[in-house]
């Protein structure tokens, strides 16, 4: 695809306006897969504990490209395209497993755990006839290999030699925010997939959008899990692509009137839980941060909502569809009380989450609402025009940050 095929008609350099064609245009979507997901970024692929043992593997995607992530016999993690060098079939068919090597089912071509083609069935033919030409060099054929890097139990992969080192890609502030939550060996508690009827960017924007949280999610505000009037702020990485928003607990929220004054749906006085054990949270990280939502461009979310911890992987599935892969986790050293608390609080998130259910449908509302308005502009102006860290959550700074990074990669 040439650059000329992809739309570039943005309304000037402002980050505060986004045309709706970016969520709809097929050519633009194809360009995103090449320039972003397969470009100089780091994609989250799995947890290190998902491939803990030697030979343990998982299959996932970089954009739409199928990949295998596997730990070899020396303990190194490798990632390579899940595509046989022979006829292009998937090499591994299961979501996860353990392998000594991988063999394509179609014609039994074999790969080692680094993704090298090491065996061709009947390479020398049968009874002296047939077989591969003698000059065929297995080392010249193989699925594309990816760079792999880990950080605090997270595994990222990149197809591009131009992506900076993962540590530099994340930056110090985001690294600190990840390290704060991923303090030790994790224990996976469950996995769910949510199929969302919207462009992948609408979900990423939603996660970065600190403005919507307490307005769309009435459950949040009603039980004072977060309100815009609570303390906190949003950190935006220098390149705009990553963010971390935090909510700091305040014992006395004397500003609840702000919601009533504005007539907002989110304020329901007198709504109380019959069983309040759901919100029996403890300050497990010892810093008073009740809630932290963090994104790494383009596809990763780390979530701490009270004691409910999860990673979410965003996978595009065409211009108008995506999948969200949730992995709920705790820590290997959780007490039975903390374990039980995490299971209860998992009601807050996921496809049926009290504070995330709406995120499953609101992207579809935009996708459907703007269907006839590809050239109209969405307004992303809360908190001004710029994409920098702010000490309030009544801002769309981190959404503008996303577009700053997005446009840079797409200009590529």
């Amino acid at each position, binding site marked *: 695809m040439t650059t000329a095929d992809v739309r570039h008609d943005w309304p000037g350099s402002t980050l505060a306006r986004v045309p709706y064609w970016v969520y709809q245009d097929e050519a633009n979507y194809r360009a995103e897969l090449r320039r972003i997901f397969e470009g100089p970024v780091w994609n989250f692929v799995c947890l290190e504990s998902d491939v803990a043992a030697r030979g343990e593997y998982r299959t996932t995607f970089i954009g739409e490209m199928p990949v295998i992530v596997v730990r070899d016999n020396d303990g190194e993690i490798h990632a390579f395209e899940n595509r046989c060098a022979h006829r292009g079939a998937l090499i591994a068919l299961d979501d996860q497993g353990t392998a000594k090597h991988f063999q394509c089912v179609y014609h039994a071509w074999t790969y080692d755990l680094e993704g090298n083609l090491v065996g061709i069935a009947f390479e020398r033919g049968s009874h002296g006839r047939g077989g591969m030409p003698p000059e065929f060099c297995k080392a010249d054929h193989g699925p594309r290999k990816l760079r792999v890097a880990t950080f605090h139990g997270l595994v990222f992969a990149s197809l591009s030699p131009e992506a900076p080192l993962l540590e530099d890609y994340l930056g110090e502030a985001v690294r600190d925010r990840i390290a704060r939550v991923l303090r030790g060996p994790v224990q*996976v*508690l*469950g*996995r*769910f*997939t*949510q*199929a*969302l*009827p919207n462009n992948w960017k609408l979900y990423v924007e939603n996660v970065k959008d600190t403005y919507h949280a307490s307005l*769309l*999610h*009435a*459950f949040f505000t*009603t039980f004072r899990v977060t309100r815009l009037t609570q303390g906190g702020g949003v950190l935006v990485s220098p390149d705009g692509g990553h963010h971390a928003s935090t909510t700091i607990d305040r014992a006395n929220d004397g500003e609840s009137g702000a919601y009533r004054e504005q007539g907002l749906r989110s304020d*329901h006085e007198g*709504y109380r*839980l*019959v*069983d309040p*054990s*759901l919100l029996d949270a403890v300050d497990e990280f010892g810093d008073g941060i009740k809630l932290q939502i963090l994104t790494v461009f383009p596809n990763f979310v780390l979530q701490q909502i009270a004691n409910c911890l999860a990673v979410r992987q965003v996978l595009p599935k065409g211009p108008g569809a995506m*999948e969200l892969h949730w992995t*709920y986790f705790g820590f290997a050293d959780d007490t039975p009380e903390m*374990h039980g608390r*995490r*299971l*209860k609080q*998992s*009601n807050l998130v*996921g*496809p*049926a989450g*009290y504070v995330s*259910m*709406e995120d*499953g*449908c*609101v992207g*579809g509302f935009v996708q459907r609402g703007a269907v006839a308005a590809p050239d109209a502009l969405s307004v992303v102006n809360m908190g001004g025009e710029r994409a920098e860290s702010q000490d309030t959550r009544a801002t769309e700074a981190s959404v503008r940050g996303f577009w700053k990074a997005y446009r840079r990669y797409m200009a590529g």
Partner: protein
Amino acid sequence: MAGVDSPVVDWLPRISQLNADYARAIDDDRLEDWPAFFVERCLYKITSADNHRKGLPAGIVYADSRGMLQDRVAALRQANIYERQSYRHLVGLPAILADADGGARTETPFLVVRIMRDGTMDLFATGRYLDVLVEENGALRFRERIVVCDSGRIDTLLAIPL
């Protein structure tokens, strides 16, 4: 299965009636009646076959008291936003698996069609109910209902309980 001399074998018609009543309450949008199908100290969980097989304990919905079920209904009615939709449950025949500490352990297959406000009908979930039923004040109730969905992939969102 439970032995032929087990008292719970006689429960089969009552279990079938309970399952039918449960499905009607949800499909008729009488969600407020739903918590009463459970005893006060109960476990209701929606999970996937994959999580269940691997022993991963988290649920899409996880409630260990009737109060949490009441809270779920209150949140759906008062706080959560989702497009108007309804379910049609088709509940299969219960298999009585065993006596379970004064009750019966059963497994019942189900199929749920979701009907959206624009008329779209989709097969939303299939799976099995893994139940522990007990008698309380002369009525059968769920002490445990683990909803094991065959697929772990949920379309858009799961609002109404299964």
